[in-house]
C-alpha cells in the first residue's frame, strides 16, 4: 500500500513534501495513470494538517501535469505524454521533477532506469551513505560537465 510521509519540522514546506512524493511515486510506477488520489479533505484529516496544504500540493501537481482533477472522479494520475522529450533540466528535483516536467511517468522505456536507480540507492545505503548524500550525488551528476 502506497503511503505518504511528512515531517512537520522539515524546512521543506509540507505541501512541497506531498508534491514531491506523489511525483516520485508516479515516476517509479508506484502510482499509475488513472489511479485516484484521496480527496484533499481526507488526506488532510489523515495527516492532521490543514486542507489548504493538501489542496496546494494537488494544485502544484495539476499544474505540472502529474495529475488531473475531474468533477465527481476527483484527483487522478494523468496519462503520460505521448512522446516524452529528451531529458530533464539540471536542478530538477530527484524526488520527482519540477512542475512542467513531462517525463515523469514510468514507462517501459524508463522502467530499466527505475531499477538501476533502486540498485544505486541500495548500494549507497549499504555503503553507509545517507539519503541526503545520495540525493546530492545525483544532483551533482545532473549538473553539466565542465570542459
Amino acid at each position, binding site marked *: 500500500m502506497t503511503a*505518504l510521509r511528512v515531517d512537520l519540522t522539515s524546512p521543506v514546506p509540507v505541501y512541497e513534501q506531498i508534491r514531491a512524493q506523489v511525483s516520485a*511515486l508516479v515516476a517509479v510506477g508506484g502510482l499509475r495513470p488513472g489511479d485516484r488520489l*484521496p480527496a484533499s479533505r481526507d488526506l488532510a*484529516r*489523515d495527516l492532521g494538517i490543514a486542507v489548504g496544504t493538501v489542496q496546494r500540493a494537488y494544485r502544484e501537481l495539476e499544474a505540472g501535469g502529474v495529475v488531473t482533477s475531474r468533477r465527481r472522479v476527483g484527483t487522478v494520475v494523468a496519462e503520460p505524454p505521448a512522446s516524452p522529450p529528451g531529458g530533464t533540466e539540471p536542478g530538477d528535483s530527484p524526488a520527482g521533477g519540477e512542475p512542467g516536467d513531462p517525463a515523469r511517468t514510468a514507462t517501459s522505456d524508463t522502467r530499466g532506469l527505475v531499477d538501476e536507480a533502486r540498485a544505486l540507492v541500495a548500494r549507497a545505503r549499504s555503503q553507509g551513505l545517507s539519503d541526503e548524500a545520495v540525493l546530492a550525488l545525483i544532483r551533482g551528476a545532473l549538473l553539466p560537465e565542465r570542459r
Partner: protein
Amino acid sequence: MHALVIVIALGLPVLIVALVVLLVARRGGPPHDLDATVVAARRHETRISAVAATTSIVMVLALWVAAATWGEPGVLLGVAPFTAALTFSLARALGEARWPRPTGEVRSAPLVRRSLRDQGGWRLTLFASTVAGFFVVLVVFGLTAADDGRSVERVLDAGRETHSAGPYPGWAVGVPVLLVLALAVGATLVALRAVTRRPPIGLLPPEQDDAIRRTSAARELAGAQLWVGLGAAAYLAFAAGALLRVGWLGGGVLCLLLAVVAFVGSVMIAATALPSRRAGAADAVPRTATPGPVA
C-alpha cells in the same frame, strides 16, 4: 401511546450511548512503539465492540421491561431489536471517534481512497439485502393485515365464516418498526463512515491499519445484521403463527422458513466477525524482534 414508544425507543439509546464516551475514553498518553500501539489498538477496538454489544443488549432488556410494565407490548417488542441495532451503531460510531488523532512531527497516511463499499465488502451487500427484504415483508404484512393492523382475517364460505388470528404484524407495529429501522440503517452508515474516515493509527504500517479498519467495519455490520436479522425472524415467526392459525398453511410455512433462515443466517454471519480480532490486530501486525513495554 405511539409518542411514548418513540420517546423510549429514541431517548434511551441517546442516554445509553452517552455512557460510551466515558467508557471508551482514552487513558494515558499515546504509545511509543509498534507493540504498544498494537496492544492499545486491539484493546480500543475490543472495548468499542464490548460496550456497543452491552448497550444494545441493555436496550432490548429495557424495552422488554417497558413492554411488561406499560401497554402496547407488541409495539415495544417489535421495535426492540431495531432499537438495539440503532444503539449498537451509535455506540460504535462514538467509539470510532475516540481513536487517537495524528500527533508527532512525522506523520504518514496511505495514498488511497477509502470508501464505504470497500470497507463493508460482502457484509454491506448482505446487510442491504436483508434490510430491503425485510422492508418488503413489512409492506406485505401491512397490506394483508386486518383493519385493526394487529390481526389477519380469512373469509370462508363466501363471507359467511370469518377466521381471525393475531398477533399479526400489520401497520400498527409496522409503522414504528419502519421508523426505527430507517434510523438504525442511518446509524449503521454513520458508524461505517466513522470507520472509513478515522485517521490512521500512529506507528502502524498502512496494511495493519487497514486490517484494523476492516475489522471494525466487519464488527459494525455483524452487529447490525444480527439485530436486524433477529428482529426480522421474530416478525416472521409471529406472522407465521397467525397465518397457520387461520389456516393459510402455505403462507405460514413460508414465513416460518424465512424466519429460520433469517435467525440462523444472522447468527452465523455475526459469529464470523469474531475471528476478525486476530486478522485485524494480532496476526496481521508483525512482532518486533525486541518487544517493547506494553502500554
